[in-house]
C-alpha cells in the first residue's frame, strides 16, 4: 500500500466518509474510492464495482476474481447510527447499550426537563424539534430511528421524516391502541399500509421485557435482527 493511500483512507475515516479499497493480490496495485470518487492504479470494471457494492452493503470485504486478477476489496464504512427521539427512562440504558453494539447514538428531545445532564451524563441531547433535527441528520440505509416519547406531538413529526428516509429500522413505542391512532394521523399525512409496515411497534423483540434496561435490550435485539436477518424481522 502507498503511504498516500493509507493517509487518504485515514482522512476519509476520520471525516465519517465511507471508503472502499481495491488491492490486486499479485501486483499490489490499488485504487481507493471515497464516497464513489476513485484514485489509484486499478481501473475498476463492472464486476469489481458490483462486488464492491455488495461488500459495502454487507459491511464485509471479499475477493473478486476477474480477467485473471484477484482483487481484494475492503470496506471502510462509518459507524451505523441510532437516532432516539425522547430523553426518556428507556433511553438512559439504551444509549450505552447501542454504543456497545457499535452505533453512533443521537438523542433528540426539545423538552428541557427531560434532557438533563444528570439523566444523560455522557451524551449531548439534541434539543431541536424532532422533525427539524431528523431533516438535518438525514437518516440513511445505515440508520435506525426509535421514537420513545409516547407523545404524538414529538413522535409523529419524527416518524414522518423517518418514513420518507431509507432508515433500515423504524421503531415506535406504544401498544395497539396507540398504533391505531397513529395510523389514522399518518394516513392524513398521506402515508399508507406499506409505510405502516415499516414501523416496528410495540417497539422491541417480544421477550417479556419489563424494566427500562430490559426494553432497551429488546430494542437493540430487534435492530440487530433487522440488520442481519431482515427476512425474519419482516415475518
Amino acid at each position, binding site marked *: 500500500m502507498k503511504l498516500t493511500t493509507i493517509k487518504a483512507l485515514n482522512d476519509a475515516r476520520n471525516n465519517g466518509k465511507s471508503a472502499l479499497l481495491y488491492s490486486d*493480490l499479485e501486483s499490489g496495485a490499488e485504487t481507493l474510492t471515497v464516497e464513489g470518487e476513485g484514485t489509484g492504479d486499478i481501473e475498476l470494471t463492472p464486476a469489481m464495482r458490483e462486488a464492491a457494492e455488495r461488500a459495502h452493503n454487507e459491511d464485509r470485504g471479499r475477493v473478486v476474481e476477474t480477467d485473471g486478477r484477484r482483487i481484494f476489496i475492503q470496506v471502510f464504512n462509518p459507524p451505523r447510527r441510532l437516532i432516539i427521539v425522547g430523553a426518556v427512562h428507556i433511553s438512559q440504558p439504551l444509549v450505552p447499550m447501542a454504543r456497545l453494539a457499535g452505533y453512533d447514538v443521537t438523542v433528540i428531545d426539545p423538552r428541557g426537563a427531560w434532557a438533563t445532564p444528570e439523566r444523560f451524563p455522557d451524551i449531548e441531547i439534541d434539543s431541536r424539534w424532532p422533525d427539524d433535527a431528523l431533516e438535518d441528520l438525514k437518516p440513511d440505509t445505515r440508520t435506525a430511528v426509535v421514537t420513545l416519547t409516547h407523545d404524538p406531538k414529538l413522535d409523529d413529526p419524527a416518524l414522518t421524516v423517518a418514513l420518507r428516509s431509507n432508515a433500515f429500522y423504524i421503531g415506535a413505542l406504544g401498544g395497539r391502541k396507540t398504533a391505531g391512532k397513529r395510523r389514522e394521523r399518518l394516513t392524513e399525512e398521506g402515508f399508507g399500509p406499506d409505510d405502516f409496515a415499516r414501523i416496528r411497534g410495540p417497539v422491541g423483540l417480544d421477550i417479556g421485557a419489563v424494566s427500562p434496561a430490559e426494553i432497551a435490550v429488546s430494542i437493540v435485539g430487534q435492530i440487530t435482527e433487522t440488520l442481519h436477518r431482515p427476512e425474519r424481522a419482516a415475518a
Partner: protein
Amino acid sequence: MSDAQMLDHDDILERAAAWKESGDDVALATVVSTWGSSPRPVGSRLAIRGDGQFIGSVSGGCIEGAVVSEALGAMEDGKTRVLDFGVTDEMAWEVGLACGGEISIFVERLD
C-alpha cells in the same frame, strides 16, 4: 466487519502511517478470506514494523509469528504475498485456531 473492529483498524492504519512517516519500514498483513471456523474475520489486520514489532491481530495468536517473518521479507523485496494457513481439527487447539479452519492473508509493504 463490526464497528468495533473498524475502530481497531483505524488505530492500526493510523499507527502504520505514523511509523512510515517517522522513517521506519512498515508492512501490512490483512485477512483476505476465511473458511470454516476462524477466530478473526476478513479485514482483520496486523501492522508490522522493520524491527519486528507489530500491532493488531489476524488470528488467535498462532500464526502471527509466521506472518511477521513473511512481512519482514516483503519489506526486503517489496513483493506482495498471499499466505494460506490450513488447520485440521486435531491441530487446531495447538495453533490456536479453535475449531479448525483456513485463513488466507495478504501481506504488502507500505511504500
